[in-house]
């Protein structure tokens, strides 16, 4: 388990079996998305079989945050890593629906479901 620095939206990164769980918190917009992307892509260094991005504590995300997740998805697919999103509130889910990315990402209601 590792803790991220205070200004990163990524609160901590946990290893559960062969999966890596990324806990994210706060609003993700242009002021934090570069740091968000940096933290997300760093997770690939540990070569996990599966990455679960837990968004339970994220109340808002704009397209700059979504772009960070798209970049992670692209990299994960190239390396054969499964990427799952969990715990999206209605506001965060909305942007995935408007951009039709809800059919591109594997989205689960809870972290437990994403790890199953």
């Amino acid at each position, binding site marked *: 388990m590792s803790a991220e620095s205070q200004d990163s939206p990524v609160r901590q990164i946990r290893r559960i079996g062969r999966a890596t769980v990324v806990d994210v918190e706060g609003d993700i917009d242009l002021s934090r998305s570069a740091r968000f992307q940096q933290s997300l892509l760093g997770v690939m260094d540990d070569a996990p079989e599966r990455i679960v991005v837990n968004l339970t504590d994220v109340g808002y995300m704009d397209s700059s945050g979504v772009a960070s997740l798209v970049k992670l998805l692209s990299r994960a697919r190239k390396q054969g890593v499964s990427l799952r999103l969990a715990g999206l509130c209605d506001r965060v889910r*909305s942007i995935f629906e408007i951009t039709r990315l809800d059919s591109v990402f594997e989205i689960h209601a809870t972290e437990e479901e994403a790890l199953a």
Partner: protein
Amino acid sequence: MSAPATVQTIRLSICSTPRHLRVVRAAVDALCEILGFDEPSRTQVVLSVDEAITNVIRHAYHGAEDQPIEVELAALDASPGPGLRIRIRDHGRRVDPGQIQSRDLDDIRPGGLGVHIIRESMDHVEYEPAEGGGTVLTMVKRLRKAEGVT
């Protein structure tokens, strides 16, 4: 619920720093609630304003954080029904409105989603050259019948 007569026009003058985005979002969200928009509509309006200002910071000001952006929020009670009009004015590089288009969503890649989100979420979207330079973006969201319009 109809728009209260006391809510007319609110003007915000901000710098082009991304840290101000949350301030504008909070104001827009609160006004939408006062005007009677439901949660899905509030989300769409807040997201559209955020995306529009993000585009100004990135494309009109190329990331400079000390440039002016004016945001005007006006409650509408005229025909064809109540709603909210938002004007966002920048003084940066003028973008040809014809060049501002949504991108193909089947192309899965980061970036370029902001204009699609705005056009998908708002009832009216118009980019115009501003007098003296820059661009004015006007967006309108109307209250739906389910939100209390009679």
